[in-house]
């Protein structure tokens, strides 16, 4: 048996019910668009990002992670005023990196999930800032107190959302 196969034995890959990822992504986008109508506080939420992080980390497959991120991001672009590909690129990278992390570290513990969400929120924001500056020619910041609060808020939401999504996993058998 190869070392890779031996290593993969220690990786716990979670599978979900059919259409769970698509449904979750659709709901996240819908809620994001819906909640944004009710105040600027809702703008702090990044539900599509949380969905991308969760499923990428859970599936632990970079290919699935990046494709999921690309799909969610492009859909988010489609329902926003941003050019198609703006959030798509950011979430593609998040999905790819998150699935890579999920394959290497324990992502089931609440604290690690909290930390992952905060880290990926800033990573996502950094990619958006880079795209803003390089492609759109707009200013953007990598860090601000508002971003910090937003990351904590999203991490807090993830503390409830992720366990809820855990219920969509197929039981091991």
């Amino acid at each position: 048996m190869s070392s890779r196969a031996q290593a993969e034995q220690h990786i716990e890959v979670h599978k979900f019910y059919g259409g769970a990822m698509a449904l979750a992504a659709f709901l996240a986008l819908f809620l994001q668009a819906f909640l944004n109508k009710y105040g600027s506080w809702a703008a702090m939420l990044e539900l599509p990002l949380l969905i991308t992080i969760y499923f990428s980390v859970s599936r632990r497959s970079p290919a699935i992670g990046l494709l999921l991120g690309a799909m969610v991001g492009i859909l988010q672009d489609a329902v926003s005023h941003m050019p198609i590909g703006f959030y798509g690129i950011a979430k593609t990278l998040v999905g790819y990196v998150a699935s890579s992390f999920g394959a290497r570290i324990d992502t089931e513990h609440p604290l690690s999930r909290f930390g992952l969400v905060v880290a990926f929120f800033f990573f996502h924001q950094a990619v958006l800032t880079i795209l803003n500056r390089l492609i759109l020619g707009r200013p953007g910041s990598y860090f601000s107190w508002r971003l910090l609060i937003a990351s904590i808020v999203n991490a807090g939401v993830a503390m409830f959302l992720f366990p809820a999504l855990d219920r969509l996993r197929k039981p091991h058998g």
Partner: protein
Amino acid sequence: MIDFPSKQRPFTLLTIVILLQVLLLAFQIKRERDVRLVRVWAAEIFTPVQRVATWILSGVGGSWHNYIGLRHMRQENDQLHAEVDRLQLRNRELESRAMEGDRLAALLHFRDSHTDAPMLFAQVIGASADSTSRIVFINHGERDHLKRNLAVITPDGVVGKIVEVTSNSAQVLLITDKDSGVGALFSETRTQGVVKGTGEPQLRMDYVVNEEKVHAGEAIVTSGEDRIFPKDLPLATVTAARPGNPFQKIDVKPVARLDRLEEVIVLLSQQDISLKPTPDEAASTPDVSIVPAKQPATTAPAASKP
């Protein structure tokens, strides 16, 4: 906890997906002047490449152009060289014809000035094959009533005498030949002597006593004592004189350009003629001065080879 699965394939997929989305963005986003970002990028990517390609092509093209130009220049240079050579040849021909014209004009003038003196114009058609003798051939012979011991001159001075005659040509022994001798005298002092050839361009005047004052540049004319050359024809000029035993050693230079003989005059009699009358003579006397030939003096030194 930490594991490193193979990421090569997902990374390729990631790259493709990211690039596709970047392209998607580039097609949507417009920059200044409503130019799509993809066009800006394309220009930014391709412009340096095009610039380099243009630079290379222009360099190659320039080199090629220069090479072709140099080739053409070389051909043109060769053509110009050939043209220059042809023109130089043509120029020499024209110069030669001009000089020939001058010479013929001088001869014509000479004949016009001496209408009563029987003479014949001849062309030099060859020279001796023997490097030790100074002989030329002329294009007239017995048919033209030429015979041995006729004087041959140019408007400048004495050339030599005819030594052999055939029907159509004659052999002229130049005064520079070692066997040649001409009765001569100094035009000022009238001291006589004999001008002999040396085989070299220089001549020598013999039989002049040491007491006689001779100076360089002094003119020597024919004495007429040899019964070949009329008297007072310009013959030579003194270049150097020094005492000798028993006579002076006098180096003289012929006045005729013997190295450039082309047309000559054969005097058919020994009538005295004046080749170059002085301005005073020219003013007071007719152009042609023809006097009866003098009898050769029996006391004069043997001047000419029989």
